[in-house]
């Protein structure tokens, strides 16, 4: 069994922990760091409930070992509501009813955050492709797409205002 010291930045905070090599990143985030907003929905890398951003890119944290994240910057759903104010994506899911049971929502939002950073003004089709690694059993996706459209518009307006 091999133990490794891992130092990474998560939601802006630097943490150092000793982990067993086989610890999956999602278990490290949920159990060692007690950040339970990141969910686990499957055993087969299929559902995307575990999506987090690593150096800005959305990935499935159940399919990466925690040791591999040594030196990385990770963002989870807990980083979004800075100062208690909802992020435009969270607001969009609220306003457009983008969730029902909410199980897929953290993963959906982190995926959307990742692809909006690359493509701030996506078409509906691009949004649907962007979230195609995230499964939702409740909504039928239409409301999720509307929520992301809402957020994209709001983020763009904020960008334009800030210039």
């Amino acid at each position, binding site marked *: 069994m091999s133990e490794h010291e891992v130092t990474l930045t998560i939601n802006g905070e630097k943490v150092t922990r000793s982990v067993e*090599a086989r610890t999956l990143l999602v278990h490290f985030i949920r159990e060692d760091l007690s950040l339970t907003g990141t969910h686990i929905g499957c*055993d087969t890398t299929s559902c995307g409930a575990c999506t987090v951003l690593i150096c800005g890119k959305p990935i499935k944290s159940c399919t990466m070992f925690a040791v591999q994240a040594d030196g990385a910057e990770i963002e989870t759903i807990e980083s979004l509501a800075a100062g208690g104010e909802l992020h435009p994506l969270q607001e969009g899911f609220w306003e457009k009813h983008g969730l029902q049971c909410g199980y897929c929502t953290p993963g959906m939002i982190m995926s959307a955050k990742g692809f909006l950073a690359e493509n701030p003004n996506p078409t509906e089709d691009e949004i649907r492709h*962007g979230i*195609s*690694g995230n499964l939702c059993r409740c909504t039928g996706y239409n409301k999720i797409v509307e929520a992301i459209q809402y957020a994209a518009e709001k983020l763009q307006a904020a960008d334009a205002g800030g210039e």
Partner: protein
Amino acid sequence: MIPAAFDYHSPRSLDEALSLLKQHAGDAKILAGGQSLIPAMRFRLAMPAILIDINRLNDLRYVEERGDHLAIGAMTREHALEDSSVVRRSYPLLHDTAVVIADPLVRNQATVGGNIAHADPANDHPATMLAYNATAVAKGPKGERTIPIDDFFTGLFENAMADDEILIEIRIPKPAANSGGAYTKLERKVGDYAISAAAVQLRLDGDKVAEARIGLTNVSAVPMRAKAAEAELVGKSISDAVVEAAGKAAAAECDPSPDLRGGVDYKRDITRVMVKRSIQRAVARAKGGK
């Protein structure tokens, strides 16, 4: 589910990775994107004693034309292929393939080298690389060697590399003038492996097909070329009858297994249709279309 325990190494250079691999040959596995290996470890279908993680080898990430070929570093993420302007412009078959592999989250991690080294007939790159007549470049203790893609896939999940070799690069010959290629895949839902898929790369000489190579996905135990279908095309002028004959030849020569994605007859017929559609798009592209 949690993988069995293993020792973990994260080499900072290719030489270090190679010497670790040599030291532990037989017990160690390379960890690339992990999108095939980690799921297999979680089900304990794979229980390597040692993992050599090559994700820090940033020198193995590139997609660029060099001389007569496109060179793809083994650690290039699938997502980088989607974004590459040279791929978009000159390698439409590769671009078609990259965008239908798994889903965007998996593609942010999965690597081109891993997709090929895994030698899974369900993976999409093997068929595409067979159609392109690509070359794999492996490096081991004795140095580098090239392996023609026709010799690379030796069995289900088995390739022609030795235990102490690492796949470092894939080379795709630059398509000649009047060439075109296309990949057509049928999947049950976005992100799934193919029910069947066909990769076609061909070159026209006037009205006639001068050269054609066809690779098939997920309809055989080992990634395969549809050689009978190729023979139906070469030397002929493209017509509906010729395209149909090639599709039928592929349906006859493939060897699918029945599973949740369908029975044998269904998969053969889908193969016929995938091959036909890929030929039609490849021909259109060879003539300058999209």
